[in-house]
């Protein structure tokens, strides 16, 4: 039956539009704010339409310096963030693929125990173990380095669990057929398993990239050198100016720039992402 109730259509559209407006409003405000000179905010009212200082603010922030006591340009911090986010993402995917491969396809003693121990680390995110982790990283002399930024965040129970579920759904006959075809463990992994978990990898990539990009506490803790500052943590630093006015226009521009890469990843990989979560073609 096809429903034809104009009021229902109207109501549902209205709800959706309100929702979009609610979500988009802060982004809109930030965009508008970044186009006014810093002084426009001291007056007490918030402008709702574009000003004329946009190009200048964005240019300075992106290429010269972010301002408010942060002297590195945004593009450089973006690069740092990107290195960290990609390092975390690829590291997590690689480690989880391998550990899930071991847990699902190999018979070794205490296999299930291993899995549950990995699974239990879900209860230990960085925030919980931050002091001991800092200690370890400091003792290893990894403060102020890309390794220190990424390595402690790489182990992932979630991704391991996801890949385990994905591998468990691969029929046993396929594994046996590969064995008959003379595929050893490595060949099986690269020729069969990886292509079959392609969509899962893509879905995880999106989630993990955003996770890595948005890391705040950890980079704040272990970097003291401008050369390793990431974008997300720098926004906070830009807010803690002790003397003088806060240049809101620069902060807004930086914030919007910080949003772009995750948005790009989500939009670019949307199709694969949905496929990875929904599809079970095996």
């Amino acid at each position, binding site marked *: 039956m096809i429903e034809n109730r104009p009021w229902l259509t109207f109501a549902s559209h209205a709800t959706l539009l309100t929702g979009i407006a609610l979500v988009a409003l802060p982004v809109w405000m930030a965009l508008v704010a970044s186009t006014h000179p810093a002084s426009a905010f001291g007056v007490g009212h918030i402008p709702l339409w574009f000003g004329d200082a946009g190009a200048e603010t964005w240019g300075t922030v992106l290429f010269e310096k972010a301002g408010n006591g942060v002297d590195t340009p945004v593009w450089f911090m973006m690069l740092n963030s990107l290195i960290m986010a990609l390092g975390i993402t690829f590291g997590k995917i690689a480690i989880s693929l391998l550990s899930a491969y071991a847990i699902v396809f190999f018979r070794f003693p205490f296999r299930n125990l291993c899995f549950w121990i990995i699974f239990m680390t879900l209860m230990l995110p960085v925030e919980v173990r931050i002091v001991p982790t800092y200690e370890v990283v400091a003792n290893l002399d990894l403060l102020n380095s890309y390794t220190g930024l990424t390595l402690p965040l790489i182990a992932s129970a979630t991704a391991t669990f996801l890949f385990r579920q994905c591998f468990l759904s691969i029929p046993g006959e396929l594994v046996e057929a590969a064995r008959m*075809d003379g595929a050893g463990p490595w060949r099986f992994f690269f020729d069969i398993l990886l292509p079959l978990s392609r969509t899962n990898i893509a879905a995880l990539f999106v989630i993990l990239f955003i996770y890595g990009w948005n890391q705040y506490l950890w980079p704040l803790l272990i970097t003291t050198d401008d050369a390793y500052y990431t974008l997300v943590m720098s926004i906070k630093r830009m807010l803690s100016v002790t003397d003088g006015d806060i240049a809101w226009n620069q902060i807004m521009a930086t914030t919007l720039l910080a949003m772009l890469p995750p948005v790009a990843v989500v939009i670019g990989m949307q199709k694969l992402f949905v496929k990875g979560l929904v599809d079970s073609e095996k």
Partner: protein
Amino acid sequence: MTDVILEKVGKAYPNGYHAIPSVDLSIEEGEFIVLVGPSGCGKSTLLRMVAGLESISTGELRIRGERMNEKEPAERDIAMVFQNYALYPHMSVYDNMAYGLKNRGMAKNLIEEKVSDVAAMLGLTELLQRKPRQLSGGQRQRVAMGRAMVRDPKVFLFDEPLSNLDAKLRVQMRVEIRQLQRKLGTTTLYVTHDQVEAMTLADRLVVLNKGKAEQIGTPMDLYNKPATPFVAAFIGSPSMNLIDANLTEQGIKISGALTLPLSHQHRGGIVWGIRPEHLEVSDEQNADFALRIQAVESLGAETLIHGKIETESGNGEPIVVRLSGPHLPDVNSLMWLTAPVSHWHLFDAKTQQRL
């Protein structure tokens, strides 16, 4: 030349369960052997032991004289067709067939030649670039067979390859498999639970029951001279009428009242059997017994009549009769039957062996 030898091959699981106590079988080169039995009889396990997917607990497996127990599946020079085809879903038909050859390090042009040869033989040439999910069940089945054939193995192993196809296609593929096997002359081991498939395909049949080979022989051997009541019931459709009886000096006593005259030195409990197609309709004077008809199945070319041997107490043994052509007797009426002695099968009730 003897190609494959299973010598006292057995399978025991770590929990102590003996899935297969001991099976002896020697297969000639080019022979088509069908392992048949009800589900859970160990036929798939036996096949997987030959394939190398299950370890062999006891005994020895030799292919062309070489001991295979410890060899990896890929080193045994065998190829297997799985029940669900087990095609690699992300590879094209061509890649599916070429994968095993690639792993053996065969030259690219040689692979191409082999794959296209086999594809032509199976009528897959048009489909080489497709993915498995774009194929029908029968085509997938053919790709699975092609994948086995390109490797030119010493032995083909089939694990219920037709059970996922619809009835019509199954008959067609059955004929095709038989023709291909004849043409290639490759020794074949084929597992099925379908006795029609088994009878039509096999050079020799192995009937398995609870991990034991009940009988090994040609389909006609097994049909004409089943060694045990189990084989008698399993081979032939509808299955043989088997009735517990007593062999005495007067003959065979069935259902208390009925006695079929026979002089035989054996005495005591036996199983008396006759196939539904060997029972004959006769008049009242010459009949061996009367059948109280309970149900009639008319299939056009033949008619199956289900009934009970008519006795005074009314609880005679159930019997199926198979008559050619259409017949329409009334349910609950009596039908007079003779059971020709030449078609009787007698088994010892204790040892379950043929007398």
